[in-house]
């Protein structure tokens, strides 16, 4: 966990987390997975959910709107248990949009009961290393107990799917 003085005074309990990955592909292919409807829908969202993109306006300040839809039986059951709708509209903005270089995606999280709406920020840096593409994802997790519970549930279900995929 990093100490984030930039958050000082906002009262928002936040941390910063950085995850780096390198893929045997070109940066433009990685970029497409973040910035095209088909690309974004192919991987985004927790396990057991699918995403349906309604608007993806790929430019600085452009809007990203999609529905996150519980699809797998266990995801549907989990959302029902938590008293959450099976589909919720999610809205974000491309605060930065520099093709094949840098992306800053800001989501408005306004669907957590009992929690004031807040921004969730994801920054992505793209670069080329030899014949591979490097991606550095910087996350600013907003921390509150409800979200934590949802994240952990999501995490558990994701691990289960990974285990299945790799035959573990």
């Amino acid at each position, binding site marked *: 966990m990093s100490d984030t003085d930039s958050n000082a005074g906002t009262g928002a309990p936040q941390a910063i987390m950085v995850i780096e990955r390198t893929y045997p592909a070109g940066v433009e292919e990685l970029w497409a997975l973040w910035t095209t409807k088909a690309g974004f829908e192919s*991987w985004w969202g927790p396990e057991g959910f699918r995403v349906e993109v309604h608007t993806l306006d790929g430019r600085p300040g452009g809007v990203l709107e999609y529905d996150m839809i519980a699809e797998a039986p266990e995801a549907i059951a989990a959302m029902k248990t938590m008293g959450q709708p099976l589909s919720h509209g999610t809205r974000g903005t491309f605060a930065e949009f520099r093709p094949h270089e840098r992306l800053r995606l800001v989501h408005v999280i306004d669907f957590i009961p009992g929690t004031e709406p807040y921004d969730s920020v994801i920054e992505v840096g793209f670069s080329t290393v030899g014949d591979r593409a490097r991606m550095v994802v910087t996350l600013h997790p907003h*921390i509150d107990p409800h979200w934590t519970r949802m994240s952990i549930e999501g995490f558990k279900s*994701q691990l289960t799917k990974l285990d299945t995929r790799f035959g573990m």
Partner: protein
Amino acid sequence: MHLDTFETLADPTRRRIVDALRGGERQVNDIVLQAGIHQSGVSRHLRILHEAGFVSVRPEGQRRLYALRPEPFRQLETWLAGYRQLWEARLDRFGVALEQRRAKDATDEEPGS
């Protein structure tokens, strides 16, 4: 995990006090000097840190000695580890989607396919 853990550390003054205690047990005066905060502020924030379980206090003669407790930091680590793994899994899916996309492109480009 409860909200208090994170709210407690959201305050920059309390983070300075926690930093001052990283070197070991301290009495209030030492924390005041090290953190550069007025004593009344230090006392108030120490009380909050103590109530949230971040800090233990023990008397030694006339002095009261404050020290960090490991439990809330372990909770933070556990939470962050879970969050990280959530995203690691998400980027695994990103990698799978990327492979599928590349495979499809290669098939599309194959002559006569």
